[in-house]
């Protein structure tokens, strides 16, 4: 069944999957799916009501985002009491700043499967000035769950969208003037002196790049932090486009320990590092093709986190034309008992061969993870940007 904007229908099944796709599939836009779990007031009841790449699972486990597949799994009968609506949204990362909008696409499609017949909402995007879109909403009405195709949004991007659902956004990077000061980490708002209740404050959540997610754990030991890189070898390799040797993508990291030791862990130069001794980061096998099913793994020894000052995780194209969209790379950062951080590098027009993906910083014993996604021509340029101070020479692996 195809839905048009505004149309609603009763769901015959409460366990469904909702997958987002768009045309053209390869685009310069960086598109982030998110979900808002709303109370009857139409607002989120708290920060657990926002599901996105930095928090891909709702507290009740009823809404789970698979970032790599751009797909939500919903079990509507498992939602916390009081949740009456689940909104599926799609935003263009820094769209306003980059002059991007949904009109740059021709279509955005939400496909809901799990019921007898798939529900498909093909939204014509051409001409749209919105930077954040409410694609659709699952909602309870007369004790029945229904779905409504919406297709409306905000030209101002994620900020107004989040505000719409009761999330106060501070330091919205879309709106903020460039500042020489780094954005301050989540600060508790001053207690309100008025009788009115303060707005729900969710500013500890990563709404945008560079806003850190804190992986808090009391013991200061985090077990094994697993960083995974997976990608698709360039299409057509060995076939018609036989000059295309495919893409060899590598993962690596810069490590800086509190003792002042700095190190590079990557396949290039055969500096695979070590897990149980310094630099407490170890690159496992080098996947030269992207065809190994699990991709490349980098293990960081979280039990030694007190030794760390910071770790910069990056990906670079060792061989092949820099075509990040074709490489379709997904980087996952996972610490035990912590939410997974998933970063997808599929939608960039950058011709630079190197991408700083995330920064892990020792923030008073906690691991503070910031999504970066900044492209550089190579190691040296990235090093200069982040101030590690290595000396570089060309190498082969």
């Amino acid at each position, binding site marked *: 069944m195809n839905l048009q904007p*505004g149309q*609603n229908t009763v769901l015959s099944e409460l366990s469904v999957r909702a997958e987002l796709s768009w045309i053209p599939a390869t685009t310069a836009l960086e598109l982030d799916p998110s979900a808002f779990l709303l109370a009857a007031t139409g607002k989120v009841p708290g920060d657990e009501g926002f599901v996105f790449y930095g928090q891909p699972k709702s507290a009740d486990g009823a809404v789970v985002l698979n970032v790599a597949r751009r797909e939500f799994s919903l079990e509507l009968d498992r939602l916390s009491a009081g949740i009456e609506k689940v909104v599926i949204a799609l935003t263009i990362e820094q769209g306003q700043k980059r002059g991007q909008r949904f009109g740059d696409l021709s279509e955005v499609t939400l496909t809901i499967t799990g019921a007898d017949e798939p529900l498909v909402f093909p939204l014509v995007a051409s001409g749209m000035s919105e930077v954040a879109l409410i694609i659709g909403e699952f909602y309870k009405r007369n004790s029945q769950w229904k779905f*409504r*195709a919406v*297709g*409306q*949004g905000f030209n101002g991007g994620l900020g107004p969208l989040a505000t719409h659902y009761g999330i106060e956004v501070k330091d919205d990077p879309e709106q903020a003037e460039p500042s020489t000061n780094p954005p301050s980490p989540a600060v508790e708002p001053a207690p309100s002196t008025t009788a009115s209740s303060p707005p729900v404050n969710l500013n500890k959540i990563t709404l945008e790049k560079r806003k850190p997610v804190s992986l808090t754990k009391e013991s200061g030991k985090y077990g094994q932090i697993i960083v995974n890189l997976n990608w698709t070898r360039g299409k057509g390799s060995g076939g018609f486009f036989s000059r295309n040797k495919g893409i060899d993508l590598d993962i690596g990291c810069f490590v800086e320990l509190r003792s002042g030791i700095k190190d590079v862990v990557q396949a290039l130069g055969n500096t695979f590092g070590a897990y149980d001794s310094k630099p407490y980061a170890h690159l496992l096998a080098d996947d030269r093709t992207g065809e190994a099913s699990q991709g490349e793994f980098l293990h960081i020894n979280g039990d030694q986190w007190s030794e760390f000052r910071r770790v910069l995780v990056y990906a670079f194209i060792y061989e092949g034309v820099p075509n990040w969209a074709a490489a379709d790379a997904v980087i996952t950062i996972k610490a035990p008992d912590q939410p997974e951080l998933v970063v997808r590098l599929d939608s960039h027009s950058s011709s630079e061969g190197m991408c700083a993906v995330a920064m892990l910083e020792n923030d008073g014993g906690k691991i503070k993870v910031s999504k970066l996604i900044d492209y550089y021509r190579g190691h040296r340029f990235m090093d200069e940007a982040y101030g590690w101070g290595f000396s570089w020479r060309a190498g082969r692996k």
Partner: protein
Amino acid sequence: MAVSLQKGGNVSLSKEAPGLTDVSVGLGWDVRTTDGKDFDLDASALIVGENGKVLSDGHFVFYNNKQDPSGAVVHQGDNLTGEGEGDDEVVKVALNTVPTEAKKIVFVVTIHEADARGQSFGMVSNAFIRIVNDAGNKEIARFDLSEDYSTETAMIFAELYRHNNEWKFKAVGQGYAGGLGAVARDYGVNV
């Protein structure tokens, strides 16, 4: 207690509300909170004779003609955005003063420039149309446009019609292609 309306079902107003003299048709919706063109819904009424056509062009009561020549049917004012609580547009009918040649009054709800703005009722939040007995301000019947008419852009809401010397109410709930202009033309208005 409002009557639950099934399409085409009849409700005798005099039975539902004995001694009924004044009714209001109320249309309400929420202001658009997303970016884009406002949602401008319009309530209109057509006073129709035996032949199924308006008695005159002046008997088409809408935002540009706020009342019929007799003053029995009065549009209380055009709302362009849905701003305000409750009913955002109201058409009041004094049944005792409706001209005798009028056999029925047809109420329609339309979205202004629906096609140009790419809008339908389902895109509007909390859009409804209802009829209220002014004595006691009691709701007689209500349609939920956002929910149950989501893909429509215009709808024949209801008819009040004379039958054996009493006014009866008939819920229609029929979607209508072509907007207000098409509705008016079909009832004989020179648009």
